[in-house]
């Protein structure tokens, strides 16, 4: 009787198994890559109220600090209390169904539950105030929020991305008075940045140390 399996069948069997194994690993990695963060870069994040930065910042020209009041003094930029919304919206668009959750929150005292857009792991300690003080513009990390009808993450916020700037901050610096300016541009960011680094006493030798962000 002829042999059912040729001498090479064993090898093929091993190859098939190995391929399956590799495919499984690749599949897992791909899945992991796709699901790593709840929301990908440039993907609008659904919110309980479809708040539009484009409308409030772009159209109405409200300053960032009107709502994110602690950005210059604290680690956390601050999320506006509902009372801030109600300064205008007790008068404007009061009966809009889109605004109903805000009104309901104001009346019931039950806070809104915003979805976090820019998120860092718990072992990273980011401080807004020092970045603002050293001339890093809002746009640098958050993108053109004045063009975002729904807010999305503009950058990966990965460690490599942070380090790119911490190693060479110059191209991302701007004069302090332009930090909150969405449309500010400069022809030669490297030259201006080098001057600002000197002026704002930015020391890159300590910026890439682990203790700068991790503790």
């Amino acid at each position, binding site marked *: 009787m002829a042999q059912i399996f040729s001498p090479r069948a064993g090898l093929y069997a091993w190859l098939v198994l190995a391929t399956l194994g590799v495919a499984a690993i690749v599949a897992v990695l791909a899945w992991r890559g796709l699901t790593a963060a709840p929301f990908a870069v440039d993907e609008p994040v659904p919110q309980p109220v479809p708040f539009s930065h484009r409308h409030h910042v772009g159209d109405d020209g409200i300053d960032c600090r009107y709502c994110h009041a602690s950005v210059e003094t*604290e680690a956390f930029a601050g999320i506006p209390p509902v009372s801030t919304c109600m300064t205008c919206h007790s008068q404007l668009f009061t009966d809009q169904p889109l605004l109903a959750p805000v009104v309901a929150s104001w009346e019931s005292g039950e806070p809104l539950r915003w979805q976090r857009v820019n998120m860092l792991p718990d072992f990273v300690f980011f401080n807004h105030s020092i970045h603002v003080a050293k001339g890093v513009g809002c746009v640098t990390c958050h993108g053109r929020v004045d063009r975002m009808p729904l807010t999305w993450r503009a950058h990966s916020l990965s460690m490599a991305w942070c380090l790119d700037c911490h190693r060479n901050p110059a191209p991302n610096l701007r004069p302090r008075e332009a930090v909150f300016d969405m449309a500010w541009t400069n022809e030669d960011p490297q030259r201006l940045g080098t001057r600002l680094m000197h002026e704002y006493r930015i020391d890159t030798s300590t910026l890439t140390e682990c203790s700068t962000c991790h*503790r």
Partner: protein
Amino acid sequence: MPSLSADQAEIMAALRTRVGNARGPRYWRALDELIDEPAFRRHLHDALPQVSQLAPALDRRAFLKLLGASLALAGLGACSGPPPERILPWIQQPEGVPDSLPQFYATTLCAGGNVAGVLVETHQGRPTKIEGNPAHPASLGGTDPLLQAAVLELWDPDRSQSPVHQGVASTWDAFATEAAALQRRFEPDGRGLHVLSGTIRSPTLARQRREFLARFPGAAWHQYEAVDEDNALAGAMLAFGRPLQMRLRLDQAAVIVSLGADFLYEMPGHLRHARDYADRRKRVLEGFTGRDPSSAPTPGRLYAIEATPSLTSANADHSWPLAESALPAFARELAAALGIADAAGGPASGMPERRVQAIAADLRANRGQSLLLAGPSLPAEVHALVHRLNAALGNVGRTLDYFEPAEPREASAASLQALTAAMSGGMVEALVILDGNPAYATPGELGFPELLAKVPLSVHLGLHRDETGVACHWHLPATHALESWSDLRAFDGSASLVQPVISPLYDGRSMHQLLDLLTGSGGAPPIDLVRVTWDGVLDEAGWQQSLRQGVIGGSAPHAVGATASAAPSVELSHETQGSDIELLFRPDPHIRDGHYANNGWLQELPKPLSHLTWSNAALVSPRLAAELALGNGDVIRIAANGRELEAPVWIMPGQAERSITLPMGYGRLVAGHVGEKLGFDANALRHAASPWRIEGARLTKTDRHVALASTQQHHRMEGRDPVHRMTLAAFLANPPAKTPERRSLYPPRLQKSGAEGYAWGMSIDLDACIGCNACTAACQAENNIPVVGAEEVRRGREMHWIRVDRYYEGRPEAPATWHQPVPCMHCEHAPCEVVCPVGATVHDSEGLNLQVYNRCVGTRFCSNNCPYKVRRFNFLQYADLDTPQLEAQRNPDVSVRNRGVMEKCTYCIQRIRVARIGADREGRRIEDGEIATACEAACPTRAITFGNVADPDSAVSREKASPRSYALLEELNTRPRTTYLAALRNPNPALEDES
């Protein structure tokens, strides 16, 4: 282990049988493999607890199965991204409440009988950390472990959350009905209505007591505290005829003689005492090393004579153990030597005459700047005698003064006995217990729980539904001090306000509110109950000022002139029934009378001298242990006055030979998840008439052994020299020269400071350190350090980032004791860094040895290579991530570490970063003293100094320039940034030939 030889013989016999019965060849590599049989393992566990821990809990196959499954699951778990996070905004942001910056509120806490002003750090309304209030006279910025643990007490998940009536959950409304009925029932005169509170330290409570007794004239109010000051009170009555209180000024006292008085740790006001004591020593040194040595104050000397070692005797220049029964005789001998004629005669104390004469000569030479102190457990006559001696030495008005207490003082034991007498006589119709646990913390002889069961109506207000709460008809949840309005008086009589820093977490009320409910309608807002007390004293501005400062200005009473009259001479008791062994009762250093039993931080904090955790033990002297063939952990049966208990022993060097100390506070039956069924209950042997000491105890050794969890097994210096110490005379005559810097093969770059010129370093003054553990507790609170439990401590896995080592020197009967806090040394040539395979521990340019948790894979090489053993590994998931209360307690500026990660002292890098960012934002440099690490801030004696060593003018640089400065294990040339200042002692030259 000679006592185990019989067991071992048995094991060997059984082994031989097994090997003999085996069929064919059977191979084994280790004995425990061979004897792996359930019955045998049990036997092994009884005989050799250490070995049985090594016995495998899993066989190889099960282990591989679990390993495979956990790998697969871990892989799956890694497949999801971080969970989405929500942000919840305020509805209306309160003015002045920042989003992420901490805020500090001044308030006052009473911990273990000691009232101290504190600043409470809150993050978004959550109290997370206690700091001392520099403006408060009883703190001056220092804290102790009990104060540090107050935040954990607030967030304790086992706190009682709602009223309970007859074991069924009830409401305050239901109790209000009961209270109204009570008021009607006791309307005419209140006979049969009894209230039991602790010592009244609150002016508001005193006012409410007056009002209560005015409303119900026939009612009785009792004050009982398990750790009482009855003897001091009775002593003052004997000497002055009025209950005067003593206020010490230790910064003026050169020669101090303490007769069992632990003024550095146990006595109320100890934070202030420790600060004054250490400051004077610093002034002496600064004077001698300064330009004009003649301006230096007289070098101080502390004599401590006591039966059981305390932190005061550990810091004394001369400490001699003496049985407590002989202390009165010693006091009399000293008085006779000082020329108080009527003190002569009576039995001898056994203290060598030359010591008595030497002390007396020292006291006479320092008239007006000496101080005698008697401990709370000594009889009233000794206190009275000490008052006379202080007066005779001209100390009154200089090193101490007296004042009239504003609140009524009452003898605690007598007050309790009046209550129990009324209870057993059936006279108590209703009993209201205000924040106490008498069903546990009363002498067993009184049978309080049985008497309580006979009371027709009992009400208990307390933080926990404890032994008393369970036994009473009504249990009412109390608010924590951080949730309530109140006021408190400190040891020196100065008053300060208690303000809430968070609204009550549960449905609790303060004792002021409960009393308001019992005498009135109960509707008054809690703040009004306190304000009313201060009407006429504090106007609105004064009230605000007192709240902000944390102390009511000018509230300390004036000193009164007092002449101590001759008291009846001290009688020595001679009731040695059966044996000459005396039993001493002491509050546990951390658990106190049991109040803190459910506090994990305090349970795990090593006791300052024994370094025991999670249990108490009967402290015996080395000689008594040798006589009875006792080892640490052997259980003895102690019988006295017809009652008995079993307790594991701990051999305590420096313990008086025939005295056994039984720490209180353990053996709790209803305390919560943490504190139940640990140790033994010393109250069982306590006697109401003499709560501190009983004589004639009989001991029997049992064959039981308890594995006690001690964090330091080594008591000797092992030939090394971790603690540098010298006598003051030797230091002044011949200050040690700086050791020249050794050569190193490491590149020198690490010594350089950062480009901005900061180089962080620390100096710890061993002369100032009293070994109180406040630093360890403060570090635990600040850095989210988990509690691991007794089992893990026995395996040596405690997580404290700063430990306080204790070393003995000399004869075990009366050794010299040294304490040494050991945080991470932040070595410039760090041995841990070179062995980390993943670069998880690295240096930064400011000299910090960093631990990067997100890089750490847990090889533990670093810990292995650390000569100081300051690295701590999360062997298990120690951090509790599930209990919401504990989550709320944590410091949001510090990572919570997970299982498998190494951690260690960071020099409080979060505080450095906050100061750094603040200074950077304002374009200035960080000032000296702007950063205080948690340990430095907590230290009552300012023994720890942290700062920039690159700045020659900084406080830490000045400390490091001292000739006393040295590095731990300097011979290893790790160039630690943490250095020490040598400890000094100033023994009496007349007693040079003895230690």
